[in-house]
């Protein structure tokens, strides 16, 4: 994409990229200026995206565009998102979560008109406590906790892998080895390969193997506690009798 500023030169005037000396020789007094390149592309894309965002916002949440401080709107939005997160960790379904989130947003918005967003958010107290008190105790599996624990486990595993790779690279350089393959006995499938490359550099590669997935699955099961599904069904059966 490029944006050009029109030239008012005669038809035989300067063409884009022609040297200035040639233009002077022809007696041309006006010149074309071309504005383009990646910066202009980014500005144009940002402008288009902003227009789209404003139109979508105007259609979906017209009140967001009417008055009020931007920082207050951000505070309320952040509080609603945080509330939604704690509800999801308690295993509340998507539809009910959306309802509760929308209700909190409406109440905070209303309160913010009177006492300010900061005070309004302080009034509801800890959002974790609010989520805990708003929905009855969830006796089923805690899928939200399971997914979060799985991701954390993978993160920890990957960090350990990166740390191990740096240790192997340091050891290989200290020993003067050109190539080194390390396989961990305790973690099947996990390995690190070090190799010097021409030009004085080196490369380090790692194989994760199935270990990270196994760790993530274990963390997921431990925290989600899917066996609660069986106990809940059992409780339901007893109740129905």
């Amino acid at each position, binding site marked *: 994409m490029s944006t050009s500023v029109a030239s008012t030169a005669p038809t035989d005037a300067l063409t884009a990229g022609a040297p200035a000396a040639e233009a002077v020789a022809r007696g041309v007094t006006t010149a074309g200026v071309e504005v383009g390149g990646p910066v202009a592309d980014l500005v144009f894309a940002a402008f288009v995206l902003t227009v789209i965002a404003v139109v979508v916002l105007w259609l979906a*949440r017209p*009140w967001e565009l*009417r008055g009020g401080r931007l920082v207050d709107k951000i505070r309320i939005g952040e509080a609603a998102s945080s509330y939604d997160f704690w509800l999801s960790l308690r295993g509340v379904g998507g539809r009910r979560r959306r*309802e*509760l989130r*929308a*209700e*909190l*947003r*409406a*109440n905070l*918005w*209303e*309160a913010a*008109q009177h006492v300010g967003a900061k005070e*309004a958010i302080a*009034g*509801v*107290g*800890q959002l974790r*406590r*609010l989520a805990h*008190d*708003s*929905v*009855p105790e969830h006796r089923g599996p805690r899928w939200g906790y399971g997914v979060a624990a799985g991701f954390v486990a993978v993160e920890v595993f990957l960090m350990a892998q990166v740390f191990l790779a740096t240790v192997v690279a340091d050891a290989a350089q200290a020993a003067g080895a050109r190539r080194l393959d390390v396989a961990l006995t305790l973690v099947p499938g996990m390995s690190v390969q070090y190799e010097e490359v021409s030009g004085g550099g080196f490369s380090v590669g790692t194989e994760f193997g199935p270990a990270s997935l196994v760790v993530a699955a274990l963390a997921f099961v431990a925290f989600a506690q899917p066996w609660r599904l069986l106990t809940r069904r059992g409780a339901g059966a007893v109740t129905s009798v």
Partner: protein
Amino acid sequence: MPAHDPQMLKGVLSLLLLQLCATQEDYGYSLVVRLQQLGFADLAEGTVYPALSRLESQGFLDARLVRSASGPARKYYTPTAAGIAERSRALEAWDSLVVAVASVLTTQEVST
């Protein structure tokens, strides 16, 4: 006015909310303001909103969304038939409690 005991307030909050909603269909923040104006000045929103959600989950309150010109759609609550019955039951329980407590306090005053 002395601050209300949070535990005592929790015990009667459902009754108060059912009563207010029965008088006039209303939404969360407005109910908080009404309660504050009626004497519960230290009542926090964080106490009322979960109570409303629980009453709705229990089937005592019915809710409907009403578009607002000044902000997001508000959720207005009205008591269901079960809610009205629950209000009557809670009111009787409250009256009975007040009588019993008053009786004990009166006896205590005489003996001291």
